[in-house]
């Protein structure tokens, strides 16, 4: 049963190929059947593989399936091989299952768009690439999947290509992540030249044998890998692409830019955790990046108008939590948060999609309102997901996973009280912006009237995900225990000063504080929020946060404008100038010589005579 593993990426890839080649001849129903069905089958195979993995764990708690050798050049021998262990199994389960739900949803969501089969082809290719990334047994195959998901992300952000703004957003996403990818490729070169292999497991073993703790090589490799992860996972300082990536269709945002692709960085770091353990400085950098990102993105989320941009910043912030957890050495906690985040963030995006479609493409939360009675299904699922995101104590999944991370930042070996404070402030911000969203959209007077209601294909995935967003928290103990076979135990170093229950109590309190302030500013006294922005300091802060702390502005000044300036200066290529000059000179000679061709025979004869005289004179006198 476990040897069917190759089917998990192969099925979506085959259907993507089918849809690319024959998609235009399929009816919408057939395209949806192929696109959704392949992911469904893939999810089913994953569940079967997981069942056999759990019931009869293979030796060493991992299973490798080598399909064929990819290249064989001078000792460089990457394979097309799949590697299954607890870490990749959990990720693949989430990707296929959540992916399946989102595909069902998009079968209805996209029904009126042209390019229906194109959409499913891209989505299937994305799922196939993502699974390749997760199951790869060597870093080169991982890179293939990594670039594959980047490509699909680009294609899907620019899916509605008739609007140039979407194309611009797609290019931005692609170029910014490329910065990270370059760092990652450098990491691969470094690892291969110094350790001589790209097989992940061999690599980890050799690294721990050959490199001592804190060695420069390990530090460089870990930092370069972090660069790759930062690009893909939209962390500081490369987070600028994710909010713009919301230009794509909403199911895309849910699947790629919330639940799965952006967590590839988390997976990469968890997969190469040995390197990070060898380089404490790099691990500290991971934690700092995570903490800084979660705060910055949290503040930015507070100021956005567009419902999808609020959620995008929230995603950046939550992935910041995962990075923070990885940085302090709480590997399992990061993965646990990934699972719960995939559930509730996918749900939030799908809910947002329902609302946006119902309100005829209205994105601004300030033009929404009073949808609680109008759209009960969307309301209740959105509230559940929102509570899970904000961490409603004791009953939601998000509470368990986030508070585990916050607690580990205090107690784990790499933890520090400053990280704990950052996590707590982040929790407060999360609660604030989540309930700001909920109160603005669902409460208060009716804003834009509802024109379209979702069908079952959209509400059923919402329901399932809402269920998971609540009960996902009870997976905590089994999931953490399961992951022990693939990831090292979190080392508890700091005891005293604070207990886990105490930390959770504070987090719960901050949730309530956030809820109260959101209620105060965005439901009870809405003019209070306006008066906050009215004074100059408030206005400046609001503008600054709204513009994502000016990162776009800095990048524009530092990179985009010099580049366009150089391009403008060199528009008429100066190398070309030389060759144009040669052509001009030749043309001049040609015109001069052609004017001597008068057609008068006597001139020619005179020329010949003069030439002969000259020639004879030269022979005689020189």
């Amino acid at each position, binding site marked *: 049963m476990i040897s069917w593993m190759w089917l998990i990426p192969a099925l979506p890839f085959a259907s993507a190929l089918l849809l690319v080649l024959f998609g235009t001849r399929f009816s919408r129903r057939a395209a949806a059947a192929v696109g959704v069905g392949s992911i469904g089958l893939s999810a089913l195979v994953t569940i079967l593989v997981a069942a056999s993995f759990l019931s009869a764990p293979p030796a060493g708690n991992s299973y490798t399936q080598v399909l064929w050798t990819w290249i064989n050049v001078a000792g460089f021998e990457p394979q097309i091989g799949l590697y299954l262990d607890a870490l990749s199994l959990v990720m693949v389960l989430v990707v296929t299952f959540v992916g399946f739900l989102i595909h069902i949803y998009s079968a209805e969501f996209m029904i009126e768009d042209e390019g229906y089969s194109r959409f499913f082809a891209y989505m299937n290719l994305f799922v196939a690439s993502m699974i390749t990334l997760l199951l790869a047994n060597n870093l080169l195959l991982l890179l293939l999947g990594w670039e594959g998901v980047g490509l699909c992300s680009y294609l899907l952000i620019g899916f509605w290509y008739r609007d140039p703004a979407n194309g611009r957003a797609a290019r931005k996403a692609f170029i910014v992540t490329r910065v990270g990818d370059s760092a990652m490729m450098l990491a691969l070169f470094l690892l291969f030249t110094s350790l001589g292999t790209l097989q992940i497991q061999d690599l980890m073993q050799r690294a721990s044998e050959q490199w001592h703790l804190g060695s420069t090589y390990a530090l460089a490799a870990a930092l370069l890998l972090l660069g790759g992860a930062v690009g893909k996972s939209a962390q500081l300082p490369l987070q600028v692409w994710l909010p713009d990536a919301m230009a794509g269709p909403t199911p895309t945002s849910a699947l790629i830019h919330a639940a799965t692709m952006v967590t590839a960085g988390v997976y990469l770091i968890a997969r190469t955790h040995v390197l990070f353990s060898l380089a404490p400085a790099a691990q500290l950098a991971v934690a700092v990046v995570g903490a800084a990102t979660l705060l910055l993105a949290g503040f930015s989320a507070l100021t956005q108008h567009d419902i999808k941009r609020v959620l995008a910043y929230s995603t950046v912030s939550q992935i910041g939590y995962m990075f923070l957890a990885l940085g302090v050495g709480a590997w399992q906690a990061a993965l646990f948060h990934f699972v719960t985040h995939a559930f509730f963030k996918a749900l939030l995006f799908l809910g947002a999609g329902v609302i946006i479609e119902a309100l005829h493409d209205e994105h601004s939360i300030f033009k929404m309102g009073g949808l609680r009675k109008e759209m009960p299904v969307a309301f209740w699922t959105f509230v559940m997901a929102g509570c899970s995101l904000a961490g409603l104590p004791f009953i939601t999944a998000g509470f368990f996973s986030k508070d585990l991370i916050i607690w580990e930042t205090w107690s784990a070996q790499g933890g520090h009280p400053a990280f704990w404070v950052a996590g707590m402030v982040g929790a407060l911000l999360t609660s604030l912006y989540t309930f700001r969203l909920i109160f603005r959209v669902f409460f208060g007077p009716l804003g834009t009237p509802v024109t379209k209601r979702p069908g079952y294909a959209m509400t059923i995935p919402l329901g399932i995900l809402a269920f998971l967003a609540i009960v996902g928290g009870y997976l905590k103990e089994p999931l953490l225990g399961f992951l022990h076979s693939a990831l090292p135990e979190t080392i508890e170093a700091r005891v005293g000063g604070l207990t886990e229950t105490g930390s959770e109590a504070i987090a719960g309190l901050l949730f309530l504080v956030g809820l109260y302030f959101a209620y105060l500013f965005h439901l009870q006294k809405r003019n209070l929020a306006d008066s906050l922005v009215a004074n100059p300091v408030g206005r400046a802060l609001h503008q600054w946060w709204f513009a994502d702390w000016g990162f776009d502005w800095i990048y524009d000044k530092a990179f985009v404008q010099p580049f366009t300036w150089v391009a403008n200066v060199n528009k008429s290529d100066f190398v070309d100038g030389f060759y144009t000059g040669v052509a001009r000179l030749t043309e001049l000679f040609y015109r001069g*010589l*052609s*004017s*001597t*061709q*008068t*057609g*008068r*025979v*006597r001139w020619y*004869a*005179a020329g010949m*005579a003069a030439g002969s005289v000259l020639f004879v004179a030269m022979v005689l006198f020189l």
Partner: protein
Amino acid sequence: MFSLGLTGLLVRRNLIFVLMSLEVMLNAAGLAFVVAGSRWHQADGQVVFLFILAMAASEVAVGLALVLQIYRRFKTLDVDALSAMRG
């Protein structure tokens, strides 16, 4: 005599005269050969003159035929008027 022929070739505009000047130049060349032959007591000069005569005869035949054709087509024998092959 050669210079005389050359001048005629360059100055006259009538094709017939041009051809005649050409003949003068050929004869000049032939005369030069004969004189050179008698000066160094060689028979080669006279042999070459015979060749030149034969060549001149055939050249005149072809040349006159072309002149006739040109006259029929353009109704003129002015060489400067026949400059259609200007570059």
